[in-house]
């Protein structure tokens, strides 16, 4: 039972690399009166790691949350325009956001483990999606997710202790493990390595590499190095606008936009 097939409408053919997975057209996001995202148009390719970069508060998280409709939960937030995944408009009234989110997993910027045990934190997703028929399957899923997130060694002896009693970085990895455990098709990661040490970061980057073979990944990061290391495509946001979107190599060597150049060179502000 592979995680691949949790699609709303199962994707019949396996998406080839570089095919568009997510596409956004003229997306506008408002928080009440505040216009947080303006006219964003972007194609996110399948089996590719796309990095979102940009100064703090420019709308990266906001746009990311649009992709799995997590913005629905903020009362004041309004999304306009069109975002589609596998050519299906996700803001179509017929779309079940739940299914969408099962397909598009998310790691939040602030680690938010459930006030439950470490095991339950990771097992929750697989459980509600019926990914494990037996208890032992579940154990396996949890173990492998924790391993992928590089947390297994630290917590394997205390799977029953509360997830909220972990260190900041551990919580972050726990949330990564939790998202990975349901094997979504698209994984949105909002600064997944912000609280991680270089080694843990390396492990997560390795995980991203690994996941890329089968999944589409969008990652928000403040580290240019990280963006350069893990992503194939990079999108640069500034003040709610998508300034530039390009191949990562190109972006970091020869950006089209002046602002990108400035930002990468650390010449902003």
């Amino acid at each position: 039972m592979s995680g691949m097939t949790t699609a709303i409408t199962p994707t019949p053919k396996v998406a080839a690399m570089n095919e568009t997975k997510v596409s956004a057209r003229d997306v506008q996001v408002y928080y009440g009166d505040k216009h947080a995202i303006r006219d964003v148009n972007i194609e996110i390719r399948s089996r590719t790691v796309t990095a979102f970069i940009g100064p703090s508060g420019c709308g990266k998280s906001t746009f990311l949350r649009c992709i799995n409709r997590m913005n629905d939960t903020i009362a004041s937030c309004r999304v306009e325009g069109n975002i589609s995944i596998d050519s299906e408009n996700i803001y179509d009234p017929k779309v079940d956001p739940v299914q969408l989110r099962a397909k598009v997993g998310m790691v939040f910027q602030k680690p938010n483990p459930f006030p439950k045990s470490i095991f339950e934190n990771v097992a929750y997703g697989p459980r509600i999606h019926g990914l494990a028929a037996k208890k032992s399957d579940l154990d396996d899923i949890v173990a492998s997710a924790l391993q992928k997130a590089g947390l297994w060694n630290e917590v394997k002896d205390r799977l029953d202790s509360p997830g909220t009693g972990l260190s900041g970085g551990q919580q972050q990895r726990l949330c990564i493990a939790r998202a990975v455990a349901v094997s979504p098709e698209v994984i949105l990661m909002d600064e997944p390595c912000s609280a991680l040490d270089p080694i843990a970061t390396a492990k997560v980057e390795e995980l991203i590499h690994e996941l890329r073979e089968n999944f589409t990944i969008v990652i928000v990061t403040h580290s240019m190095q990280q963006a350069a290391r893990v992503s194939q495509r990079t999108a640069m946001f500034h003040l709610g606008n998508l300034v530039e979107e390009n191949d990562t190599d190109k972006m970091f060597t020869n950006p089209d936009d002046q602002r990108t150049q400035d930002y990468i060179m650390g010449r902003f502000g």
Partner: protein
Amino acid sequence: MSVGLIFLVVLVLAAAGYFVGRARALSLSAQSGRKLHSLPSYYGQTVALFIAVPAFFVLIAWLFIQPIVIDSRVNGMVPDSVIPDGGARSLVISDVRRIANGLDAVLSRDAIDESALTDGSIDFSSIRGRLADVGVALVGDVPTEVFEAAKAYRQGAKFGNMMMTVAVLLVAIAFGAWSYTWIRPDMRARNISETFIKALLIASSTVAILTTAGIVGSLVFETINFFKMYPASDFFFSTVWNPQFRGGSDLGIWPLLWGTLYISLIALLVAVPIGLMIAIYLAEYASKAVRSVAKPMIEVLAGIPTIVYGLFALITVGPFLRDYFAQPMGLGSSSSSVLTAGLVMGIMIIPFVSSLSDDIINAVPQSLRDGSYGLGATQSETIKKVILPAALPGVVGAILLAASRAIGETMIVVLGAGAAAKLDLNPFEAMTTVTVKIVSQLTGDTEFASPETLVAFALGLTLFVITLGLNVVALYIVRKYREQYE
């Protein structure tokens, strides 16, 4: 089958439906190799819901309609001649019902065959005695028509029951089977069952609306009657409350409203500070052990019957306040006073404030406390400036609940504050509240269709409208000051 049994059978069917539905979903998915849209249990739930809900619906409708149908049929069999003078048909019909139900007992006790009822092989002329033997008391002898009607009723009920059983089970099975065959791996079973649950949630919240409608409905009619007898302007603008037994009463609402506000205010002045401090202490300072003992203990205060508080007010607090405060201060010598009732009522509503607030305070995330401590705030500063504002909506809810309880209380006011309606500022004076007068006017010895009694309805409705206004204001305030954390 009895209703209870049918109910059980449907439940069992639903449970069975759950398992077959689940199994079918699993096997279909295994066969077709397609993944299920939802967890298998949701398919089970869907089938179970399809079995249970329409069936229960039919059951309830049937239970509602069958008596009407049978009654109307039996009604036709009872000629006017057997209805006693001045009596009512409905009473004879209930006699019929009683006989019909008694017959079952007679048959089973005397081991008589069902057929004996119709072929006349046994003498049923002594039916009254036989019924009395099985504990069904009748008034007089049973006229043949009534007995026949009873038999018909029994037949009808039996038949109806049978039909009901059949119908309910049929519906259950039909819908179950249909939903069973409907199962596909891509069926959105979770959404179906969730839509269903959501409908239940909505239905539950309409209960509140219905209750309000019911209250208004049951008050408004008699209120109109009241205003036909007593001028509304006097009711709303007169400052004298002086009902008289033989009419000619003054029924101005102001003294009562004033008493209500005054007493509730004092009660809140007692309960809110104490209750909030208790909540804060238990949530923030007390050890787990103290908290787990003190909280349920204080909750018992809400469960002590109000008469105990009333007597406490009457016997202890009232004379104490009179002897040590009112008389020395020259503020009167009444042992029952607004202050007495307010104080005692305040004690009673402490748990409403303390327990609910305690839960809310406890739910404020630790990271907020950390943030404040980290800045060098003391615990009390943290509580006052960070935690309470964050917990405000819940705390206001708790206070409103306490206030509501204070407004609705009678016994403490009767015993503590007396029954005299007065407009006075002196807290050592006896006064009374709207609620007390609703109860006393409604349960008095005055004739019902007099303004003195009907005023209770007008008081109830007015109070309802006033509290509604207060609640609107409260809602507005809470909305304005609400702080969402995280």
